[in-house]
Each structure stands twice: as structure tokens, then as C-alpha cells.
């Protein structure tokens, strides 16, 4: 597999993303860094148990922080055949070790695998200290991981690009002097039992209409905060979300008691939340601040005892 990748990497007329990655990824990024190492004074029979328990077929031999050799199953078999199983590793290990450096690119690394034919290489930093070990399995895993991450990123990008035109198209295709596309939710006051339902239902609806995820998230958080406030502080009210050509407008209305000092209510940390609201984790005095942060425009007015009126606007373009 690794050899194949390398060969294809040299094939100039069609460079795939995987091949490109071979130049981008370093040995350090794909190696495994929890390495089982052995000391040269341990015996060959100890290494047998170590290999079995750790399910490994070889290990670097390290003395005083420096790599002094490699020990593999092959060395072990030789020792068995020669009935030298109780000698120290020092005498049974391979001392002429081919290494890789952690800052080398994968392309170099694969070339080395191909050329020298070992199944694993110890990885050193430029100071000569052992950092990890690399096998073909690590290379394949590293490539897959990177591919997966990139795939996910493209996927979100693609869906973001796909969605806006859907909304656009609707407004382009439909003609009327006035188009109104409104979702209305009634909110019960003085209880948090069902609070949050409207925000998540609205989010669902907007998602179906193709609003892109980042905007959806901002709308979700802002409407959730507003809904919790209605449920916590008022006799009840309603949330009205209207889809417009330019974006989404959300109005939140309640029928009292209203707020005496609106400026104060907007201050971060200001809260009059009663105990039953605080017990549920609300009352940080951050709700209105969040709403302001999430919306592109916010308008907040109130009169006592008539009630409070919050308007939020979210633009498709931002």
C-alpha cells in the first residue's frame, strides 16, 4: 500500500489529494508516540513476554535516553534457534539501525520503507532522542485521519453553499406585493417546564428551509434566551419569526410586567431571577447580552405594566 502510494506520487500527470498529503504530513504527525522501549540489560526471554503482552513485534532499545539498537521478533527467533534466550538484549539486538526524523515528510519516509524494507522505524528528533515509532499502519491511519477531517470540512462548506440559493430561489420564483412567511409560538409564563421548545422547533423549521448552520446556531441561541426570559419573568407571550428576503426577523412580545430600567436589564450580570429559576441554572444576567451578540440588530423596549418587546434581526449575508 505504502509503496503503491509512493509510486503514484511520482506519477506527475495526475496528482491526487492523497499524494499531496504525503508532502504535507510529517513523520511526527502520524507516528505513535507511546512506544514500548527496552533496556539493553534486559534478557531476550523478557522481551518475548513484553512482545506478547503489548502485541508488538519489535521495540527500540534505549540506554541513557539514547537509541542503541532495535530488537525484533526475528532477533528473538534467532536467539531461540541458537538457544541464547537468556543472554541480554545487548547481545541479540540489531545495532545498525535505520532511523527517521520526526520533521521528515511522509514522502521521504515511504521512500525509506520501500528502499530498506524494514517494517518499523524508530523516530528521532534532531537531538537524537527517541520520539516514537512508525509503521506502515501508522502512515495509512494518518492519511485516513487527514482525509476524514478534510472530507468533513468540505461537507459543511458544500451544505452551506447549497442552502442559500434554495432560500434565494424561493423569493426569486414567487411574486407578490408582500410575502409573509411567519412562524408563531405561544410561550407559557411562570414555568420552565416546556421552555426551549419554541427555539428548537423554530431552528428545525429554518433548517428545513435551508438556513445555513452558523446562522441557524446564532438564531437558536438568541431565541432560546428570549424564550427562557418569557417563561421566567412574564405572564406569557409569543415569539414570531418572519422569513424575509434579507434574512430572519424575530419578535418576542409579552403581556407584562415590563421592565422599569431597560438599560440596567441589558447590563451583563444584572439579574432578578428568582430562586426557582436560578436552581435550573439560569440567572447569570447574560441572556440579553447573548441575544445582542448573536443578532445582527436588536431592539429592546418595555413599559410597565404593559410588557416588553424584543426585536432581533439576522441577515443572510453576514
Amino acid at each position, binding site marked *: 500500500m505504502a509503496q503503491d502510494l509512493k509510486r503514484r506520487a511520482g506519477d506527475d500527470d495526475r496528482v491526487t489529494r492523497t499524494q499531496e498529503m504525503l508532502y504535507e504530513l510529517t513523520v511526527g504527525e502520524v507516528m505513535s508516540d507511546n512506544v514500548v522501549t527496552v533496556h539493553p540489560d534486559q534478557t531476550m526471554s523478557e522481551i518475548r513476554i513484553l512482545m506478547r503482552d503489548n502485541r508488538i513485534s519489535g521495540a527500540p532499545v534505549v540506554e541513557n535516553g539514547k537509541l542503541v539498537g532495535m530488537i525484533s521478533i526475528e532477533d528473538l527467533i534467532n536467539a531461540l534457534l541458537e538457544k541464547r534466550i537468556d543472554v541480554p538484549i545487548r547481545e541479540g539486538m540489531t545495532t545498525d539501525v535505520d532511523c527517521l526524523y520526526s520533521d521528515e515528510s511522509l514522502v521521504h519516509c515511504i521512500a525509506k520503507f520501500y528502499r530498506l524494507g524494514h517494517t518499523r522505524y524508530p523516530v528521532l528528533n534532531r537531538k537524537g532522542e527517541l520520539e516514537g515509532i512508525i509503521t506502515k499502519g501508522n502512515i495509512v491511519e494518518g492519511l485516513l485521519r487527514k482525509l476524514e477531517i478534510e472530507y468533513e470540512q468540505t461537507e459543511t462548506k458544500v451544505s452551506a453553499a447549497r442552502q442559500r440559493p434554495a432560500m434565494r430561489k424561493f423569493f426569486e420564483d414567487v411574486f407578490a406585493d408582500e410575502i409573509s412567511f411567519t412562524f408563531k409560538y405561544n410561550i407559557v409564563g411562570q414555568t*420552565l417546564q416546556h*421552555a*426551549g421548545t419554541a*427555539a*428548537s422547533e423554530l*431552528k428545525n423549521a429554518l433548517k428545513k428551509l435551508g438556513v445555513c448552520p452558523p446562522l441557524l*446556531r446564532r438564531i*437558536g*441561541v438568541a431565541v*432560546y*434566551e428570549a424564550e*427562557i426570559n418569557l417563561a421566567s419573568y412574564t405572564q406569557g407571550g409569543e415569539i414570531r419569526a418572519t422569513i424575509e428576503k434579507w434574512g430572519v426577523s424575530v419578535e418576542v412580545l409579552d403581556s407584562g410586567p415590563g421592565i422599569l430600567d431597560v438599560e440596567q436589564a441589558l447590563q451583563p450580570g444584572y439579574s432578578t431571577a428568582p430562586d426557582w429559576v436560578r436552581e*435550573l*441554572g*439560569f*440567572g*447569570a*444576567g*447574560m*441572556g440579553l*447580552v*447573548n441575544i445582542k*451578540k448573536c443578532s445582527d440588530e436588536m431592539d429592546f423596549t418595555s413599559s410597565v405594566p404593559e410588557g416588553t418587546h424584543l426585536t432581533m434581526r439576522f441577515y443572510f449575508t453576514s
Partner: protein
Amino acid sequence: MDLNALIKEFGLDVKAGAAHLDREVTGGYASDLLSDVLAHGGEGSIWVTLHIHHNIVAVASHKGLAGIILVQGRQPDQDTLAKAEKEEIPVMVSDLSAFELVGRLYKAGIRGAQAD
């Protein structure tokens, strides 16, 4: 690290969302103030809290969090579990205190957002 690895490493008890444990955990947030989490919880983060009521699921869902860990062995409400299944948010329980758990998560490489 993904949720599965986290669960194994810290012996977490999975209460809901067992089908969504392959999600990568990209960070962590610890808070018991929901608005605070709504403001600062990062997408893909694991959230450590002691709240057990269903509002935590809504918060996690709005912020795209990877999952919720309840501390001190606190058991989630029944409607929290139902909602978590519906919203596909994993809910897990740890016997540790928040301080202890967060310390260990940090040690395992999970980081909070830098202050903004």
C-alpha cells in the same frame, strides 16, 4: 480524542446518546450557568455540569456540543434522557467532583477555549 475513548478512560456511565459516541471532542467547558455556556461553549466541546434537568440538552444542542458529563454521580431526569436521545446529545455520568474531573480531562489533553 473521541467520546468513546473518553468514556473508557474515565469510566463514564453513558445515559443517553449511545449511538453518537464517535464524535471527536475538540475542547471542554465547565459551568453551571446556562447562559454562560450559551455564550462561551465551543462547538465540539464536552460540557461538565451538575445540572440534570432537560434545559442542558437544549443548551448543548444549540451550541453543537459533543456531549454532557454530569458530575458527582448525579442522575439525569427522565425527560432529560428522552430529549437527549431526540437531539442526539450524549449524556454521561462521572462519580468525580467537577474539579477533579476537569483536572483529569485537562491532563488527558482536553483544553478549554482561550479567554477572549
